[in-house]
């Protein structure tokens, strides 16, 4: 049921892409690039799944997978995937500063300038990565 009795009779034009979309302006290009990160992040997950599958098959399969991933093509693809993932994370964190700057319920607005609010989540992410890398590297 619509809010207004005449609303259902209102005709609207079909949705269409704005002029210049998707590559006409840098704003659009960044938007498409951000969305395309999902393809590379999914590829990264498939790579991790491949590794876990090899791990489940025993030491020979694990070592063979590591040797395969050390090949130049696979290394380049892994670095590309990592690059797109980092782009996603930094853009996500940087957009998130605007959420931090807003007023949520009775909580006072944080007394920090907007760029500092952007650095806080990014600093948190990097700290977590270092801890996780230390665990993977056997330091923790």
């Amino acid at each position, binding site marked *: 049921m619509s809010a207004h009795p005449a609303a259902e009779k209102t005709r609207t034009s079909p949705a269409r892409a704005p002029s210049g979309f998707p590559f006409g302006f840098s704003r659009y290009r960044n938007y*498409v690039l951000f*969305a395309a990160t999902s393809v590379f992040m*999914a590829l990264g997950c498939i790579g991790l*799944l491949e590794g876990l599958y090899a791990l489940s098959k025993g*030491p020979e399969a694990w070592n063979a997978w590591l040797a395969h*991933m*050390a090949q130049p093509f696979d290394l380049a693809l892994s670095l590309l995937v990592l690059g797109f993932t980092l782009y996603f994370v930094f853009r996500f964190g940087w957009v998130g500063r605007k959420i931090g700057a807003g007023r949520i319920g009775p909580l006072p607005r944080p007394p920090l300038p907007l760029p500092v609010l952007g650095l806080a989540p990014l600093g948190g992410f990097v700290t977590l990565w270092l801890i996780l*890398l230390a665990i*993977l590297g056997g330091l923790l």
Partner: protein
Amino acid sequence: MKLIHKLEPLWWILFGAGGFTACFFLPALLLGGLVLAPQGLLGDGLAYERAHALAASPIGKTFLAAVITLVLWHCAHHMRHLLLDLGGHALAPLAAFGSYGLAVLGTVATLAIVAAL
């Protein structure tokens, strides 16, 4: 498509949860697992016995299953909207069922592989 639209809040929850999970953990997993370990730069950190012990522990299994499946659902929702933006609403059924179908397959594969560790 009605069901897809009805479940829109669920897709967005998975998208948001996957986005945060990716920010928290994915770069380190990719750097460690796909770049540093194959190049031998993690020493014995991911030698078979240790890698298996880490991944096959209850915490390791839960962590890996959660991170990979949530990120896959995040990617599926993002890809659906990328396809809609680039191809228009004519692609809506293909974008929705293709993206979420792949996410379902990925989830099943992840759970099966993690359970076999």
